[in-house]
């Protein structure tokens, strides 16, 4: 039941906020904060309950073959946890800056959270599409929320490319329905091996291309740098930290359930695209002078890392991919919030104009440096550990070239992040008067601390077991099917 609440509660809030705005305007400030905290706790508790034992809820009491089933297994629980933390951080960042001001923003925000949770817990492929589209719509709106020309242009590009992707996904789902007459993922996992190979090819190709567009993988990533750099600070953090990860969850779930046995070539495609993303993202980040755009291209590359992990199709790779996803969530949320605050504070996003920042915004630069070290992969921090496990998994699956690309990408990323830091630490003119950034600094600092903490995780057996369980559980499709069809 609690799994249903993760969708229903944010959805209710999204509809309550306009009502509160109309009838009790003075309540709005407290209500929004309360709502945000409530969503966080509901999501976390759903994740915990699903982690202990797969939690199912049958909507309308129909069995899995006929109705919609919401299921929280370990993979979903892990991503729910990620979405709760990342969403919570982005919520706090936007609340600290905007207060209750634009209530419309929070409507869209809660809508986004509801639909993201929906994607993570649903067991029905068409339901997944619906949630997916709602969350994409909310994301388009959030990107364009500031109505500056960059935001609108980025929003439009995101919308057109995202919608094309969505129609490819819908096409795939339509073919699945035509071929099998069923939409439940567990049932599909059982019946897909029996359909003709040609049909499977079409289904796999259209699902993959649609999901790649939504994820922002390299050859079709064009909307991502625009959207992530043009949105406001908290939204950039949310998009890079969580929204992309939810898309990766979808790819992970669908590819494992539908194609793991029937079409292993899918995983080759994912690996190739991941490798391309690593190289392309890093190479493009090398050229950027706009700090947020640089971070956005870095996101493309980090997505590539995660895809290399997914592409192994093995438990170790998926655990490593999730570990990198959660690491990247902390790093990018922290980096985007720090960079976004700096950019707003200094009225510029060009790194050449951010010279001498260290002497005026000391703590910000220190936090930024720590997060940078984490994302480049300096040893005791989380980023290094996840990259090492990705490398390990990739080589175990026999993908040596992706592992080399991972190493090469690390060197390039060290280059461009050091370039940014060199501007921060060089001497420069004093900037305009400081706006006191405690709120943003606290969130970015907490993210940096989490990165340090995540670096310890692989050394502690009990914590590491949690991470490795995710991969084992995700690959174990038989258990997923039997849980789903138990009724």
């Amino acid at each position, binding site marked *: 039941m609690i799994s249903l609440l993760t969708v229903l509660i944010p959805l209710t809030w999204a509809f309550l906020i306009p009502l509160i705005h109309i009838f009790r305007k003075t309540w709005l400030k407290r209500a929004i904060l309360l709502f945000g905290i409530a969503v966080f706790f509901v999501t976390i508790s759903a994740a915990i309950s699903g982690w202990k034992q797969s939690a199912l809820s049958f909507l309308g009491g129909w069995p899995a073959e006929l109705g919609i089933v919401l299921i929280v297994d370990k993979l979903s629980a892990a991503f729910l946890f990620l979405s709760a933390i990342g969403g919570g951080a982005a919520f706090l960042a936007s609340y600290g800056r905007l207060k209750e001001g634009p209530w419309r923003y929070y409507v869209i925000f809660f809508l986004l959270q509801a639909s993201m949770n929906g994607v993570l817990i649903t067991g029905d492929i068409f339901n997944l599409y619906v949630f997916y589209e709602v969350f994409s719509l909310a994301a388009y709106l959030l990107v364009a929320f500031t109505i500056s020309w960059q935001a609108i242009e980025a929003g439009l590009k995101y919308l057109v490319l995202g919608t094309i992707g969505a129609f490819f996904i819908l096409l795939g789902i339509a073919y699945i329905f035509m071929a099998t007459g069923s939409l439940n993922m567990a049932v599909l996992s059982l019946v897909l091996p029996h359909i003709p190979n040609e049909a499977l090819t079409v289904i796999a190709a259209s699902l993959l291309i649609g999901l790649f567009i939504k994820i922002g993988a390299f050859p079709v990533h064009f909307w991502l740098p625009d959207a992530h750099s043009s949105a406001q600070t908290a939204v950039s953090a949310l998009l890079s930290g969580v929204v992309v990860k939810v898309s990766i969850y979808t790819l992970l779930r669908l590819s494992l359930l539908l194609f793991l046995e029937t079409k292993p070539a899918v995983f080759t*495609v994912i690996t190739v695209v991941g490798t391309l993303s690593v190289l392309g993202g890093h190479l493009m980040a090398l050229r950027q002078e706009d700090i947020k755009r640089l971070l956005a291209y870095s996101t493309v590359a980090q997505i590539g890392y995660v895809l290399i992990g997914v592409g192994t199709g093995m438990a170790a790779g998926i*655990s490593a991919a999730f570990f990198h996803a959660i690491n990247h969530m902390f790093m990018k949320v922290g980096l985007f919030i720090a960079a976004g605050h700096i950019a707003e504070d200094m009225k510029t996003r060009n790194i050449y104009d951010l010279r001498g920042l260290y002497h005026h915004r000391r703590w910000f630069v220190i936090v930024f440096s720590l997060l940078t070290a984490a994302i480049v992969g*300096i040893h005791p921090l989380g980023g290094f550990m996840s990259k090492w496990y990705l490398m390990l998994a990739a*080589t*175990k699956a026999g993908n040596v070239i992706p592992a080399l690309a991972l190493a090469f990408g690390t060197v390039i990323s*060290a280059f461009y992040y050091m370039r940014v830091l060199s501007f921060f630490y060089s001497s420069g003119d004093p900037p305009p008067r400081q706006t006191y950034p405690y709120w943003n600094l606290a969130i970015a600092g907490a993210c940096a601390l989490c990165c340090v903490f995540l670096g310890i995780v692989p050394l502690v057996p009990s914590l*590491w077991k949690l991470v490795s369980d995710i991969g084992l559980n995700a690959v174990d499709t038989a258990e997923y099917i039997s849980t789903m069809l138990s009724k």
Partner: protein
Amino acid sequence: MEILKFSFVFDKLSLSMAMLALFMAISISIFSLDYVEKKQAKERRFFVLSPWMFCVFSCMALFSGDWFFFGVFLEMSSIMLFFMILPLNFRTALYYLLTQLSGSLLVFVGAAIMIAERGSAAMGPVPPHLLWLFLSGLGIKTALLGLHFWLPKVHSEAPTPTSALLSGFSVKLGIYGLIRLASLPATDVLMVLGPSMALYGIIQAISQHDAKRLLAYHTISQLGYIVTAIGTGTALGIVAGVYHTVAHALFKGLLFLCIGSIEKAYGTRDLSLWGHGTARAFPVTFAFFLVGALAISGFPGMSGFASKAMIKASLKENSFYTVVWILQAANVGTVLSFCKLSYYGFFFKGDVVRKAPHYNPLLSYKKRIFQNTGMALLAFMTIFLGICPQLLPNFMGMNFGNFFETEALLSAIIPIFTGGILFIVFKKTLTPGKHKIYDLDFLLIKLYGILTLCPTIVAKIHTGKLRQYTIHVIIAALVIFFFLART
């Protein structure tokens, strides 16, 4: 997925290397007490403490029992040195960091493949098909021929204590790795690379006019000796390699400190601006320099003599007589180039009085107690090892007969005389000029121009036109479809 477990290896090899690291850290941190003025308390503290941090990380690398942790601590020691170059020269520091990162990442990829295939990556010989990864990874660290491009630039442009640590111990970590690798296919490669490094380093060193760069090329040449010794693959060869590693660390550290303190007084590294009674102004420094120069030339009674005698003996044991002659030739070159350095650096009185622009005789030896103590420690150790040559081989469990045999003495003294005579004959030709000297890093600058084309080409597809982005989507979809259809 397995958790990270730290395993240790405490054998005589790693213990002797660790003692060396400790000794280098002691003497260099004592030296650094005078290197930075007392007024700059922060920088002074940094330069005194960072050799200790470096020492800790290197010892961890030496004691780690598998390639992964070796790579981790290798990387961390490089990062420590990166911070030590940073105060003087950002570009050089970044150059150093990137080369070392790529080296240790290659080791990581190798370790990952090894773990995937064998289940563990214990320190020791690696399977032949992974040799290229390990050799190129460690080769960047050790400056094997072709991968040495970073060494002259970084060594010459780093602050003096850093240069001493770099040449004294940092490259020796790579040597330690190579010693662990020593088994059949690897030793063949090393046997070819070693003598060629020895010769190449000397040829470059003779033509240098930058004092520190000259020393840096000597480092390459002496590393060639060590690599040759390891290349024999026998127990005697390995002990000889370790011995020369220790000896070279001591005298090359000493030489760098001497040259560095004179550089500080002159404000330039250009040999053509030195001379004019430097030996009289800095008698103590000159005495230490003389100890180092004699040791590197293999003068009997110095550590260099003993280690070179062992190397020659190990080569003769395996009847590599050609290699012995190559090393002897290299030794002649060493003597020649040190004659040049000492003559033009300390005594030369040219026709025209050319004073260095920032000559500051106040920085003379008298007030520099710590500086002299640091150098004295290294000089003492160099002489001590030369007088008691049995000490280290005995510690390593090897009883090497008599060092001071007539044959060994002759083979050490003849190159010294030959070099001296050659210097007197070719004195005019060797006058430090302003000529340009070509090495791989000039090629690299050309290559850099080509490399920057890559991001430019990738950037070409980011036109900002939505229609072209859609075309990319269609192309990607078709490629994925045909790839999936083919399998």
